[in-house]
């Protein structure tokens, strides 16, 4: 691992002001709070966590939909907060996004051809419309659609096919990095595997790097090389996918993994679950110490008052007092 990371996130904080009215106390949601991780070139970093844990906000901060309050995002050695003008446009071309809802993310009044061509026009990649058209046909083939789909509208396609259109649009500007925000959760089981295989194939052929955000842990393990587990805005554990699945260190990771329903009756019926008590606390008013301390079966007094910092344990980073010496 002497290679340099393509994307490096350090102490990133993205907060939202949710104060209602002008005389009330200021209320801040710390959607992403002090998160650090690296994504190596040509690999997939899987980001898992339950709803409200900040994984989507993190993805959107990386593509600069949101601005962080603190911390840095370094892409290929450059801090993206400093980017302006041409360089910023280049960054927006290099980093693309695939969205969760293939129904909401495609303009229903544009044809498939127009949808895929638009980013090429914005970034001025080809000179003539014919060149762009040829590229669209090529892209449609890449994602497993037919060239004659180019004049059709999104409404004529199924969910899986629409997600393919979204992937083709992301690929249109030859990106280096794609943020996949729950690209399969809106799809049927038999279609999910189609899209995951397609993403893996494209990564292999084009040498892309992915940030793969999902709540379906089985699929994340399948596609990712490295995994980060988020809870209430914090990255509680990160490391190689197989290590995390086989020997989770953080109590939250362990509980999350044991909660996955296993599609194998003999294993599922024999296996005991770690069933967590209670629910995720509100991010407006998070616990003072470790964010997980309110539900953690192993929590001590110290966990309730002092926030654990990520520490290196073997191949992994874990933010838990249990592993401090």
């Amino acid at each position, binding site marked *: 691992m002497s290679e340099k990371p393509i994307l490096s996130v350090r102490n990133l904080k993205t907060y939202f002001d949710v104060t209602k009215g002008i005389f009330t106390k200021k209320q801040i949601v710390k959607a992403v709070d002090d998160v650090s991780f690296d994504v190596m070139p040509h690999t997939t970093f899987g980001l898992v966590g339950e709803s409200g844990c900040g994984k989507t906000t993190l993805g959107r901060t990386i593509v600069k939909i949101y601005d962080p309050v603190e911390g840095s995002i370094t892409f290929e050695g450059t801090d993206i907060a400093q980017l302006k003008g041409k360089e910023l446009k280049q960054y927006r071309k290099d980093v693309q996004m695939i969205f969760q809802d293939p129904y909401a993310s495609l303009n229903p009044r544009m044809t498939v051809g127009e949808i895929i061509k638009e980013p090429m026009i914005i970034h001025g990649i080809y000179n003539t419309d014919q060149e762009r058209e040829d590229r669209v046909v090529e892209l449609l083939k890449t994602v497993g659609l037919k060239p004659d789909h180019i004049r059709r509208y999104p409404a004529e396609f199924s969910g899986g096919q629409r997600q393919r259109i979204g992937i083709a649009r992301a690929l249109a500007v030859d990106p280096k990095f794609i943020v996949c925000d729950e690209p399969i959760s809106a799809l049927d089981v*038999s279609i999910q595997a189609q899209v995951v295989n397609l993403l893996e194939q494209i990564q292999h052929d084009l040498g892309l790097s992915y940030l793969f955000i999902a709540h379906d842990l089985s699929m994340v393990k399948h596609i990712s090389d490295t995994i980060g587990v988020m809870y209430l805005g914090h990255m509680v554990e990160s490391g190689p996918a197989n290590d995390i699945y086989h020997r989770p260190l953080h109590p939250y990771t362990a509980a999350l993994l044991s*909660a*996955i329903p*296993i599609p194998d*009756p003999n294993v599922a019926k024999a296996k005991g679950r770690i069933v*967590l008590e209670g*629910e995720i606390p509100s991010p407006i008013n998070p616990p003072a110490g470790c964010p997980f301390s309110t539900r953690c079966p192993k929590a001590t007094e110290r966990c309730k008052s002092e926030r654990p910092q990520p520490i290196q344990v073997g191949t992994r980073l874990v933010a838990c007092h249990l592993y401090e010496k």
Partner: protein
Amino acid sequence: MALLEVENMVTNFFTDQGKVQAVRNVSFHVDQGEALGIVGESGSGKSQTMYTLIGLLADNGEVASGKFTFDGEDITPSSFKSRRAYEEKMRKIRGNTMAMIFQDPMTFLNPVLKVGNQLIEPIMNHRNVSRAEAREQALKLMTQVGIPSPEKRIEQYPFEFSGGMRQRIVIAIALANSPKLIIADEPTTALDVTIQAQVLELIDELKKNSNSAIIMITHDLGVVAKLCDRLAIMYGGKIVETGTDQEIFYDPKHPYTKGLLECIANPEDDDDRELHPIPGSPPDLLNPPKGCPFVDRCAKAMRVCKDYEPEVTTFSETHQCACWLHDERAVGK
């Protein structure tokens, strides 16, 4: 005798585009105390099968044929003298001996009524008890489904509950009259993984401690693997295979069942085996294929599959599959 027996159910919907054949000749049964999982993707007809059964079809739906027997009584709509007589009968059954748990607790619960009232109502509707007794009962139910401080919570509105807690309320309402059959339509799909685990654990406990039969409708094979004794796999409005959990998971016969098992990632697998997706997409039930519904996506499709509906082949008392591959006439054994 089976608690519920459904024979040859056919349900159609009339839409602007034409007749959608949502449920096409579906037969199954549920025994006392048994958990049956009905597995299928969106549009496979799994939910509409249940809506037909409980008499809650949308206005443009029509039960074209079928015979439904529940708890020794005929509840086929066409067997009643009038629509009204049928509705009246079903109102006595629903929420009483047959209860439902729906996918989205927020749309199931009335947002302007306190959860207490929503729990007390079904008890008072079906039993001759005073309001105070019903309230006592409601508190007991809330404790049973694991809602802390029920005395306080009973006075609250649904929006004051989290998703998991709301689903517990829905389950408590379903349990109100100790039903013989609980129909759960994707009860955990809208929930987060750790909350899903809590709710599944609760359903599992209920199953062990009561004699209620459960029909679990889901797209998640992981959910049924833990909970169900028997499974029915639906595709294109038909049941393509039924069997015990062992038979379906370890000895699947239908190519669709096999495909479904191969395209899901199992986190227990060590080597990241390649996923084998099923190519194509499900059939359009406006114009369903003449033969087997799976023919367009099946790697083993033969000529006969296109033109003729496969008949049911029986492998064991519990294991049946509708596929020409297992038919002696088609493979020429």
